[in-house]
């Protein structure tokens, strides 16, 4: 009898323990604890989003800036390179560069309609040539002669 009762008690205790375990996993520590965990979840999410936002903004902003600077440097190089090429062509075509400051001529070069203008002969059209909007002629003057722009000393 005693043994039977003891076995029953043991079985009951096991059943109670099993139910307690189930209770803990399904409804942990009451409502306040549940709210705390939920807040932790949202907090972690918010911090992660902000962190990623910062990193993304920093990286993409940096890359954009880097790209802009690269393009700007390349434009600068292209301008100088085209100006030097213009002077070579000018010299080859019989232009007079004696006593001219080549560095100044290169520095004074500008872009007009996508074309680098270094000397008068780089203007392709008569109105541009005669107006010389970029003032590349310096102390001289650009004149339109024989379908091309030429420089004359005043």
């Amino acid at each position: 009898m005693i043994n039977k009762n003891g076995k029953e008690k043991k079985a009951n205790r096991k059943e109670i323990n099993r139910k307690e375990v189930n209770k803990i996993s399904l409804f942990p520590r009451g409502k306040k604890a549940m709210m705390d965990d939920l807040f932790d979840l949202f907090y972690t999410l918010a911090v992660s989003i902000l962190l990623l936002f910062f990193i993304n903004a920093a990286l993409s902003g940096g890359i954009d800036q880097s790209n802009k600077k690269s393009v700007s440097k390349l434009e600068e190089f292209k301008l100088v390179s085209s100006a030097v090429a213009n002077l070579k062509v000018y010299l080859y075509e019989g232009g007079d560069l004696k006593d001219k400051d080549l560095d100044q001529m290169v520095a004074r070069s500008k872009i007009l309609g996508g074309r680098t203008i270094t000397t008068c002969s780089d203007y392709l059209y008569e109105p541009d040539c005669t107006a010389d909007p970029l003032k590349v002629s310096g102390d001289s003057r650009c004149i339109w002669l024989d379908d091309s722009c030429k420089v004359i000393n005043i």
Partner: protein
Amino acid sequence: MNKKGTIIHYIAFGLLIGIGVFLFATEEITGLAPDIKGQWQVDFLKDNFLEAEKEMLRTDVIVRNIGREVALDLAEKGGLKTFSCGKLKGVNYWNKGKTWCFTNEAVKKMVPELVSNELNKKITEHQFTNISFNGPYLTGKGIKKTIATENAKYFYDDSFAVNLGYSFEEYAQLELDAHKLVDLCNNQEELKSCLDRIKLSYWKYGSCDKEEFTLSGTGVPFCVVSPGLAYLGQGQDQKMTNYQLVLDFS
């Protein structure tokens, strides 16, 4: 939330603010922004390659001016440096009878010498070698030069090949013409009519501006307009190349 949890929460916010400040500071203040793509390459092209190109252009400008000055000076002297056959009113004789003081071969040797002498005066840091001309091109061999910057070195050859817009080979044509005139009209009684028959249109008597036949003894002065109609001189002072010479028909 307990005290420990609160601290951890604030640390997380502090960390975020710290990252923000760091990124702002690195980009705007310390200049430690991400590297510019191709910065080294573009700097190399700009500070080394283009500087070398500019230097070569400066050399070309100097060589072209010297070449044209030598050409003009030589043409005015009739292609002769010395007057071993004599002079008539300051103009060199090309021949004395069958003896020729002018030869195109002499010009071929003389021009590189004259150019080299002038070049060594203008560019003193080194000498150019193998100076020669081929058609309108004057060429010369330079040395290997270096343009060094902080992070790069660029080596280049400063040899030149410049278009003078004028060919010293015109002297070969003039030599042929002159030999033909002297061979066919030598000792002719009617020298002028012989010359009129044979001489080409760019051969003028006396002056290129005002043609006038004069015979001084056995010598006839000529002005020969450049067969290639080449202009020499600089800027506004450019003029058609004329060769002054006297031929002896004794």
